[in-house]
């Protein structure tokens, strides 16, 4: 019965999340737009699917993947694992190499499973007439999150100020914006915000807090934050970079084709 109890508690959470949204939609539809909604039964079924789907999704994550992932974050940051015993008086940032690998892998894997990102990628694919690939976009975003989480772990371990990384990141994003294809810019900015929701946040937060509470000289209250910020900034760069690479590749191919034609 424990299972059922959990499911209903997750259903409650999801409903609480949906209720204000539904209230806003219904109010504006009834009192401002005052038009009949096309295909209402199908729409309501869709909403039902979303609510039950999210509840099952959360239930499964909490049952299987979150406990193991959170425990893993704790064990990997434990001095007993990293230094085969007690922590030495001073540690070098490179002693934590498993953390960087884990941060990279878990950042990539949770982002690929993020439902909000799936939604945005599908919409982008539809409106671009297939020019923006669903999987290509999602993998580009996931690479950005992976690099971001690794670098964020490095920042917690070295204790360097968060704002310098973020400001440097902003400069890179703005420089990329100047040269990237116009079509991708808005979507790239959006991909920063969608990466961190249901799957990524709990695992990454556990990693940050575990790291900040075991690295000598760090405190979880002061240094445990910032991973989410990294995970929302780096996908912007990776998506812009992906588009720049794709454009460069296509240009190169067309230049080559031109040359071949001229040679004939």
């Amino acid at each position, binding site marked *: 019965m424990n299972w059922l109890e959990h499911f209903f508690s997750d259903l409650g959470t999801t409903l609480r999340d949906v209720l204000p949204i539904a209230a806003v939609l219904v109010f504006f539809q009834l009192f401002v737009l005052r038009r009949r909604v096309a295909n209402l039964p199908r729409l309501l079924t869709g909403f039902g699917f979303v609510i039950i789907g999210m509840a099952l999704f959360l239930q499964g994550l909490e049952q299987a993947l979150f406990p193991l992932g959170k425990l893993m974050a704790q064990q990997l940051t434990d001095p007993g694992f990293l230094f085969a015993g007690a922590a030495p008086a001073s540690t070098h940032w490179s002693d934590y190499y*498993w953390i960087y690998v884990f941060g990279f892998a878990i950042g990539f894997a949770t982002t690929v499973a993020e439902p909000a990102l799936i939604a945005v990628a599908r919409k982008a694919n539809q409106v671009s007439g297939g020019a923006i690939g669903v999987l290509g976009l999602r993998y580009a975003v996931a690479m950005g999150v992976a690099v971001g989480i690794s670098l964020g772990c490095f920042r917690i371990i070295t204790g360097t100020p968060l704002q310098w990384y*973020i400001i440097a990141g902003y400069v890179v994003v703005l420089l990329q914006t100047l040269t990237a294809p116009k079509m991708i810019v*808005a979507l790239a900015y959006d991909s920063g915000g969608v990466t961190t929701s249901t799957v990524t946040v709990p695992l990454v937060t556990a990693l940050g807090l575990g790291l900040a509470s075991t690295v000598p000289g760090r405190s979880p209250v002061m240094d445990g934050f910032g991973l989410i910020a990294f995970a929302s900034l780096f996908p912007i760069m990776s998506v812009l970079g992906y588009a720049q690479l794709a454009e460069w590749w296509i240009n190169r191919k067309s230049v080559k084709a031109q040359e071949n034609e001229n040679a004939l």
Partner: protein
Amino acid sequence: MTKRIDFKPGKNHPGSWHNDRMPQRLKNIPLLKPFYPVVALVLGSFRDLLPIIVVIGFFQLAVLKQPLPDLYGLLTGVALVTLGLTLFVQGLEMGLFPIGESMARGFARKGNLFWLLAFGFALGFGTTIAEPALIAVAGEAAKVAATGGMITDTPVERSSYAWGLRLTVGLSVGAAIALGVLRIIRGWPIQHLILAGYLGVILMTFFAPPEIIGIAYDSGGVTTSTITVPLVTALGVGLASSIRGRNPVTDGFGLIAFASLTPMIFVMAYGMIRTL
């Protein structure tokens, strides 16, 4: 109010169905034919989850060298996640995308800018204020503020700090969606507004109390929930495709970007005001 939105009549973007999630090889098995949609969706969801299973399995078995605890619970959990994701994706195409786009078209046809901006604001505010991730972050922020001596460490003071923070983020996301909608209608280039936002974040970083900076930066990422994102995206794309002269790709996206940028500025401002 006069018509201030140049409505472009036309068709909605057709939702792409399950075909793109179906491997070609499986399409050739005749026995599976009646079950295409279901099989395709479940397979697609499982493929999305595979990386997490591989990563956690690898670190547990090869790096930490420990057995997998409670294999039965693990397998049923993965099955539930797969099923949940499948239903969610299906519901997305049936419910969230169509309502977002149909309301966007409705507002564009009506042509009343005030109500459209009010809708954007209400959607942003309403979805953020009840967001569980934000409630958790606000609680953490109150703890940090109490530890840092910015507020007195009493439960009453803490909950008032957390509530104020939630209200601040809710208002900032509401304002962000309304501004983003205005941008789509006017056709302003997104990078100018984002540049202004980045300058705002950097400027505030120099004045905000150091304790709040980490939380402020993180707050940008947690405000947009899994249900808000598809709805807001459909709203933006629907608007851009119903207004003459706008391109759904270059103009339709960008609402989420604003919604994750403004909270950073407003949370730092809140931290400054509360410490005065």
